[in-house]
């Protein structure tokens, strides 16, 4: 089998800056890392490979040149190759244009039986790229996958975590699965794997390489526009009570809840 895993480089979670004029993120001066939720997608792809045998797992990312680091993190976890789509034309992409670029890359890189993506990236947080990639490739997508039960005869059976319980469905391959965190416990790569990954060749592909026209990718291929960015005020300056007597503290709390219509 041939499996692709989509991985995204995201700003390290606690410090993020935005350019308030253009509405785009200022990435350069920030630390970045592999999207934490993509580790579960990588792990699951590698588990499928280990189970079935004779399988290759390929990590694919679109992003600025430094996004190569995410692929270097994916390889020691068990991916065989990695490719980075990087081009000035790809900048400013919304989910439709991102998915368009990724689907063109996947087509270019061969016929895949399975594609894994994370549930969502911790920066854009839309969770739309997986389903959009699948649709643009004309394949089905299963979202919120919390278990891959079996793969046989061109069909994969999975469990989905949805409101109120677990749904089991089967879908024809090729298919894209977007996985949730509860699916597995990602392995910690060993040092020698990490070192080997540093010297691994990871090809950079441009718009020309994957044969996409520049008006369908990046900002010009994006139907959406960020028109305003602002920072919400998170602090609430609430009343903080130190307990001397539990009874009276609880009475105050109940009074507050009544005032706010909770009870």
């Amino acid at each position, binding site marked *: 089998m041939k499996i692709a895993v989509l991985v995204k480089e995201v700003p390290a979670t606690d410090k993020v800056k935005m350019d308030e004029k253009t509405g785009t993120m200022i990435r350069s001066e920030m630390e970045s890392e592999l999207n*934490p939720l993509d580790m579960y997608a990588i792990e699951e792809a590698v588990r499928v490979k280990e189970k079935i045998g004779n399988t290759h797992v390929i990590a694919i990312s679109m992003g600025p040149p430094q996004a190569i680091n995410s692929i270097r993190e994916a390889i020691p976890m068990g991916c065989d190759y990695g490719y980075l789509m990087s081009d000035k034309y790809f900048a400013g992409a919304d989910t*439709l244009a991102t998915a368009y670029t990724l689907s063109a890359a996947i087509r270019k890189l061969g016929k895949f039986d399975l594609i894994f993506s994370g549930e969502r990236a911790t920066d854009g*947080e839309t969770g*739309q790229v997986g389903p959009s990639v699948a649709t643009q490739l004309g394949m089905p997508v299963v979202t919120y996958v919390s278990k891959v039960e079996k793969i046989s005869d061109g069909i994969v059976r999975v469990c989905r975590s949805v409101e109120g319980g677990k749904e089991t469905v089967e879908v024809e391959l090729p298919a894209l699965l977007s996985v949730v965190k509860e699916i597995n416990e990602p392995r910690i790569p060993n040092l020698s794997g990490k070192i080997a990954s540093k010297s691994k060749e990871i090809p950079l592909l441009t718009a020309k390489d994957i044969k996409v026209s520049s008006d369908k990718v990046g900002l010009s291929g994006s*139907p959406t526009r960020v028109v305003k960015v602002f920072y919400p005020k998170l*602090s609430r300056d609430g009343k903080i009570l130190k307990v001397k007597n539990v009874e009276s503290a609880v009475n105050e709390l109940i009074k507050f809840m009544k005032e*706010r219509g909770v009870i």
Partner: protein
Amino acid sequence: MLPNECKGIWTIGEVRNGEINPVSYELLAWGRKLADKLEIELSSIILGNGIKEELTELFHFGADVVYAVDHAKLEHFLPDVHARIYEALVKEYKPEIIIASATTYGRTVMPILAAKLGTGLTADCTELDVDVRERILLQTRPAIGGNVMATIKTPAHRPQMSTVRPRAKKPLTIDNSRNGKIILKSYPPEFYKSKYRWISFEKDESVASPIQESDVIVAGGKGMKDGGNFKMLYDLAKKLNGAVGASRAAVDMGWIPYSHQVGLSGKTLSPRFYMAVGISGAVQHIAGMSSSEVVVAINKDPDAAIFKVSDFGIVGDALEILPVLIKKLSNEVNENG
């Protein structure tokens, strides 16, 4: 599709276990405000099996028109079938705006539909408004762990599509005198061909009230000390008609399943009331709850970060406070009938 050929606002209703899910009515509250501003029709789209009886409810909650497709093959969610039908409906009736709830259903079917239509989709909005003159939808959503809010528009493509956060808005007050037009559509058998096969659904009692759809969340963290103590949170949640959430630390300890985790790598919520018990308030946790309407915290550390984002806080031992709170609330409920 181009802006000038499209008209009307659609909301994507949801059917679960044969019943119209309340998120469908919330969506009508979102849509009504926009439709009145633009002076256009508000519709609800409903796909399901055996749903005809319930459709008039949608008028009572604000719809002018209901488009319904009733078919045995729509009993379960087969994404390709649903997306195919929505696509056919959109191409026939050309709405300018489509709103769905950011549930697992909406977050799956909307990006498929947007990709098929080649239009923009804005995720998990907490605010929608319209520029009446330009007839453009202004979609506001938190991103990057609640650190920024972005207003997004889709200027040149139609329809303009968004998912909105469940529970961020209440349904309108029911008005039984409202009525409207039902358009029942049917499609040929090839529409129902699917690459999916639905196998089963196993109800998880612990998520009987999914946290994404609760008005009230009582969440516990590592300060609960022990999984057994979560029973108190369940008791409290029951008294308040809510659901139980948790920090990642509590989930990692195995005290409660992951489906209850609130935060950056869990669920992002906007309930009416959020109570954080024994949760320190790490940025990754705050990312999932900062847009709650009212926040209360109980923590024994007066410097815990959670207090900064709380409207009311108690510095004290949760294991002493919770039993008293539960008892007093029981008395309240008894007094009120």
